[in-house]
């Protein structure tokens, strides 16, 4: 899968945030977008995901493997989004949060197995029935990422995924994320403030 953006323009309240931006992310490649606060980095991800607020005006095209998905509903685009808050749904247990990501096409036993595997992968065996609010920041981040990956996205959008973690956890979580991304071989667009977040050999767009 290749994710391509052509001639993107973003305007909010008469102010042009992004002008004629084009880029391409190939399978397994991490493309980083950097820039000061308020320059429209997260809005680019929202445009890709189809969740851009009504107050924005956007033009341009999104091509996923050559197919134009600009007008496709957000839930049909196949974009996985990982936020900096690592939001877990508080009324669902840790396991249920993971199960929420698994597509409905899997049987019950397969879903259960996928959740167990994901918990193992996060080194959180036995935490399936725990309240997500009792998890530490690092644990929440891992579960949140695994939930996104379980939904089998065609591309992954990372919105400052490491910014709210302390330096040690940050490094661990970076390794955790990029290991899985390279295994899945999907394109990744990452918004970040920190150069250290970007893996070697990645393409960087500065706004």
């Amino acid at each position: 899968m290749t994710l391509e953006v052509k001639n993107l323009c973003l305007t909010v309240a008469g102010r042009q945030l992004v002008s004629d931006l084009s880029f391409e992310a190939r399978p397994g490649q991490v493309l980083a977008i950097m820039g000061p606060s308020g320059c429209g980095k997260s809005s680019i991800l929202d445009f890709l995901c189809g969740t851009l607020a009504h107050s924005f005006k956007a033009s341009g095209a999104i091509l996923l493997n050559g197919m134009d998905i600009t007008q496709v509903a957000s839930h049909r685009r196949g974009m996985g989004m990982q936020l900096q808050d690592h939001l877990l749904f508080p009324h669902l247990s840790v396991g249920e949060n993971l199960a929420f990501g698994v597509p409905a096409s899997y049987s019950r036993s397969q879903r259960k197995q996928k959740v167990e595997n994901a918990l193992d992968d996060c080194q959180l065996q036995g935490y399936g029935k725990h309240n997500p609010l009792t998890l530490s920041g690092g644990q929440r981040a891992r579960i949140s990422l695994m939930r996104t990956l379980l939904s089998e996205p065609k591309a992954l959008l990372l919105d400052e995924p490491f910014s709210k973690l302390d330096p040690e956890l940050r490094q661990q979580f970076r390794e955790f994320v990029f290991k899985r991304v390279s295994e899945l071989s999907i394109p990744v667009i990452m918004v970040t403030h920190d150069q250290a977040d970007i893996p070697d050999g990645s393409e960087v767009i500065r706004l």
Partner: protein
Amino acid sequence: MSDSLIIRKGSVLNFSATLVAVLFFAVVLLGTLSAVLPAFGYFPALGMSSLSLKSWGQLWETPGLAEMLWLSFFSGAGATLVSMLLALALVSAAWGSRFWHQAERWLSPIMATPHVALSVGLMFLIMPSGMIVRGLSPFVDWQGPPDWHTVQDPWALSLMALLILKETPFLILMLMVSIRQLPVREILRTGAGLGYQSWTLWVKLIWPQLYARTRLSMLTVLVFSLSVVDIALVLGPATPPTFAVQVLNWFQNPDLEFQSLASAGSVLLLILVLLTIAIIVSFEKAAKKLCRRWLTSGQRGVAGGFWAGFSIISWKLLLGVFTGSALMLLLWSFAWRWRFPSIFPQSWSLRGWERAWPRLVEPLEMALLIASVSAFLALLVSILILEAGRNSQKVSPHMEKVHRLISRAMYLPLLLPQLTFLFGIQVWLIRSGTEGHWLSVSLMHLLFVLPYCYLSLSGPWRHYDERQTAQALLLSGSPARAFFQVKCLILLKPILASFALGFAVSIAQYLPTLFAGAGRVVTVTTETVALASGGNRKVMAVYALVQMLLPMLMYGLMMLLSAWRVTGWRLRKRWV
């Protein structure tokens, strides 16, 4: 100021707040107890001092008891369920769109409108000779009103419609307040990234969290709907009526023998309310178990657009019915000749107003006096309790717990059927010789006005930045100046809005006026209900319109006061 002095002042504040709160609960509990004892034959005022189950026997033998209870349950629980679903659906469909701002604009006028005024307007709209049938008549060639039971129908559907029309906006407001505590945008972004439809995300992820936060408000709607009397008298079925209306009929029977039967009835009404709450709690538990698998089934959802569209259409219909009902009051109050099937009156006149006004002045003055006093007292008590709550953290952990208990128990009068404890309080008013005085009526209204004032003020009070007061205290050296000139002025908008809300709640009170006023204190509301059972439509429209306008005018005045101030003989816009 030294710490010890602050703590001493805090203790005094806490003591006063606790005392007021205890008095408040004592009145409600004493009222409930005084209504329960006559149900078991203990009513010394009537010479009954031995316990017996005679009145319960009489109650079971009442013809149509099961039907009356069913009507109350069906209309009350049904209206609550539909209102809650509609409110949740509308909030989901409107979030982030222009409908959200439209809803915010419309909520205050709908909520400020008293139930009785709205029910008279709805009656003019849906009755067989009402505007809807008049509008349809050219297409179906009706020469006279059809023989339909669209008002006071035996299934209580018109009563349900009014309850839905009035309670949905209240629940929408509560949901709008709660939704600010949820990261909705992040949930929708994350969910969209997982491939879920927006509507499915609302139902699976946001509704459960919103429901948990607005459950108490929903229960107050349920209790009100199950035990409502005034609008049931206007729109509800008559033979048999809903159970609450029947209990009121027994209370109002001049034959004192009926008092213990009425008491037993009011206890049965309480049992009906508790049973319905128990059913809802059981449903919640069952739904929690049953829906768990569905929540994580991975179904991304279908037909989300349909449900969102359906919600917006329902909202527009609700607004249309509200506006239509209000317009009906206006039209009928100025109509003179208006024969069926004409859409508009053939002639207009002020005679409806001329006929109604002389008899309207006294109830109007009384309503204004009672509503102003009860809203003012409710505001004072709310601020006292909220300030004490803020101070309780400084005094002791024990006081903090006490305050938390007070905050929760503040909703007690809204979680009990009015009939159950108002009768008991009336007994004490008769004993003390204070029945039939406007101040007694104001204090009775306070029981229902206070929870709403407290609820509306608690949010702004919690979010107030205490550093402002601390800074003002350092600069002025006067706690009174810091409180009145800084905190109260910063919070002026919510304070005035809370007063207007309290005023509106008081204007709408029917049963408390009836029980404490003993027929000697009459307000616009009691007179409108009395007229609704067969009075002149034009006069009835004038009374209902005046009742509707009173809270709206007060809201307008308070909005004006909170937006502008007079300095140096000039009007200036307020910044906060």
